[in-house]
């Protein structure tokens, strides 16, 4: 199976990066997908689709460190799983998961960043994902649309909404924090 993924990359170093990602994260991707889909076949399909996304974006992935790669794969896998569930015409929970930020605050970051990070964690995944992919990972709206299997218009709308929600939450948090 790995050789299939290698063939999609065009440069030797890209192929080795894909190989590295595949061997290192395939169980994780499968685990995340299976936890959402609860079906082996669907989880395998999800793994396949995630690797296609990896190959399509290998240029950016080569520049990511391990934690960024892991978080990126988590976003993609979760969205692929949502997409697969939709195709099976099953209802999808609005918030499939939430990993609370509390307890993970970096004391070396200033308070504003900490508050903002907390607000980011409170966002719904559909808003957080587009913002994270564009602001943090540097994908364009078009690339984001391709990754998440939505239209560019939807990406832009969600970005606007995400920023608006963050601003509202920041105001509330800052009032609370004082």
């Amino acid at each position, binding site marked *: 199976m790995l050789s299939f993924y290698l*063939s999609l990359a065009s440069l030797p170093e890209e192929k080795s990066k894909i190989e590295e990602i595949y061997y290192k994260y395939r169980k994780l991707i499968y685990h995340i997908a299976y936890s959402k889909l609860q079906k082996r076949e669907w989880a395998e399909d999800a793994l396949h689709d995630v690797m296609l996304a990896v190959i399509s974006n290998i240029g950016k992935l080569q520049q990511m460190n391990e934690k960024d790669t892991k*978080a990126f794969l988590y976003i993609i896998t979760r969205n692929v799983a949502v997409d697969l569930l939709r195709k099976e015409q099953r209802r999808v929970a609005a918030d499939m998961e939430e990993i609370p930020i509390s307890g993970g605050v970096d004391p070396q970051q200033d308070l504003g960043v900490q508050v903002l990070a907390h607000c980011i964690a409170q966002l719904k995944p559909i808003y957080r994902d587009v913002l994270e992919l564009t602001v943090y990972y540097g994908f364009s709206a078009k690339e984001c649309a391709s990754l998440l299997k939505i239209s560019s218009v939807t990406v832009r709308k969600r970005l606007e909404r995400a920023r608006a929600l*963050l601003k509202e939450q920041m105001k509330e948090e800052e009032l609370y924090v004082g």
Partner: protein
Amino acid sequence: MLDESKLYDAFSQYTQFVASRLPKEEDLQEISFSPRFEERMERLLQRQKRFYYPLINTMLKRVACIASAVLVSGSAVALSVYSNQKEESYFNVRNFSENGVYVHFFNIDLPYETTKDPITPKVPSYLPEGYFLKEDRSEPRKVELIYEGEGTDCFYYAQYGNSSDAQAYAEDALCERIRVGEYEGYLLKSESCTHLIFNDGEYLYQLNGTLTEEEMFKVAESIQ
């Protein structure tokens, strides 16, 4: 207005935490993938080994560069084409997979890789309206160009030393023998993609993309 640098730092912190909360690979149990899945990947591997896969995958969004082979019976899987005495190469159509057709064009009359000398580049002098050269991936023994048109329209052109081969894979496509000028080749076409391969006795040429058949031939005939 959100401070973009703070937003970036906040996401950095958030992703750090997300990554730390995800299970490590070594903590996850081993997975045994289904034979169907493994097989599916292997088939896809053959198809996507082609050098032009990044083009069809990224630019044409899964436009399958197609080949539809002529059906063969039983044990006979090859369909040979002999050119006239002036031409020293022919094409074989063979190798079929379950979900589509895999066509292999190669030259068996010339020794493999007789020379390492650079080839004399030949490029199309005609481009359909709106098309421009997007990317040049040429090497000393291969010309490889990607042209873009409007929207997702694009096509790929390659020129190889005559000892090279070319392969294509397609589903639900038609395959026919054709001539580009005086040279024989094959045209493979489906609803969404056209693929043209021909040999002029010196080099092997390959074109594939969203051009119409008429435009594909015009481009091919303008190669000089």
